[in-house]
């Protein structure tokens, strides 16, 4: 029984722990956006929702045992330098019209250094989420500007008080 239970826990929780936490954070953020009364609290909830989705995307791009998506370029660089030196000597002997042959020499030097895609984590979600973070802070700024304008006009940031003031103004008008 306990073996079965631990098996189920490892199957359903530990294998997907990042996804679990992403869903939980998403629920926290959504709950705050729906039920919180204060506008700043709603905005913090929105940011938590956003980071939860980013966490989901980045977790989907992780590979076990993979390194960061920056190529090991030291080895390639020394090869390139060696090839470049050879090309330079070659060019100094024959003339300047061998630039094309030099660049064609460089390409096989890279292909020798073979790249296995399983060694590097998936760069695509990183790129999408990187821009999403920066755009997220810009939209958070817009939302905070709107909150300041609401405070200027109604004197409060609580949702129910704002609604009461709007209703009172409608009844007056």
């Amino acid at each position: 029984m306990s073996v079965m239970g631990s098996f189920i826990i490892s199957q359903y929780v530990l294998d997907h722990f990042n996804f679990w936490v992403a869903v939980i954070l998403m629920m926290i953020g959504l709950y705050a956006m729906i039920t919180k009364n204060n506008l700043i609290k709603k905005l913090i909830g929105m940011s938590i929702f956003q980071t939860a989705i980013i966490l989901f995307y980045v977790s989907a791009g992780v590979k076990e045992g993979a390194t960061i998506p920056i190529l090991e370029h030291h080895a390639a660089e020394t090869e390139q330098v060696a090839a470049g030196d050879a090309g330079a000597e070659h060019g100094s002997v024959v003339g300047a019209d061998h630039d094309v042959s030099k660049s064609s020499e460089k390409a096989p030097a890279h292909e020798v250094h073979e790249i296995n895609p399983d060694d590097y984590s998936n760069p695509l979600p990183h790129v999408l989420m990187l821009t999403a973070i920066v755009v997220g802070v810009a939209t958070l700024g817009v939302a905070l500007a709107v909150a300041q304008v609401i405070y200027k006009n109604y004197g409060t940031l609580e949702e129910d008080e704002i609604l009461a003031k709007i209703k009172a103004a409608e009844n007056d008008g």
Partner: protein
Amino acid sequence: MKWIGLIAVIFTGGLLLSAMDDFPNWGDAHSPANSSPVSQYYIEQTMTDSGVPNMVTAVLADYRGYDTMFETVVVLIAGIAIMAILRVAKQVPGGAKPTPAHEVGDQHDIIIGTTCRLLIPVLQLFALYVIAHGHHSPGGGFQGGVILGASFILAAIAKGLDPALQRLPEKRYVKLAFVGVVIYVSFGVACLILGENFLDYGVLHELLPTMSAEEARSHSMLGVEIGVAFTVSMIMFAIYANLASKGELEGGL
């Protein structure tokens, strides 16, 4: 209201958690997301296409350059929207009294001022390093631009908003923010003029002092990142300056 929210949230979360069984396992290298030909292509071909070791920079500025260009435009529009929202808003009769919760002393502290005077040049130099070294290490236009904007914000916090705005007045930062987008678009248009697709940097090696098309791609990525950094840094400072002073650009935090 709280009960309705709780029910909605639990329903949504339960739906997602019940689908958890179909998710790929943690760190699975052959999950659909990781084995898609697009990301495999990015990992394998970045070095031969442009010679940039950092794949994230290459994908950001080259393969998906169109996306990044309009992300930059979104940041620019957000900054302008903040200025517009805070300026246009009129005082409604019966509104709030404009008294802040607590007052900050007038003369700024000498210890903080001296530390910031030592720190801000180093910070700005580091920001330029992050922008320029994004090809070989984590970094690039967005990160470096935000650090550059943060250095201006630090100056505004330490010495007050007015001295910072004397150095970098509103006209100047709005202009520089637009200059960033113009730099980015001009790289694309230059490719268009030379007879290739928009933002296809390979042809630019006729204009730039480069040896080959790959090197031209690498150098154009740097130029594009500089444009992104201009826009992002100036818009970050604009957001802070307007939000801290309610759009009046005086007084401040």
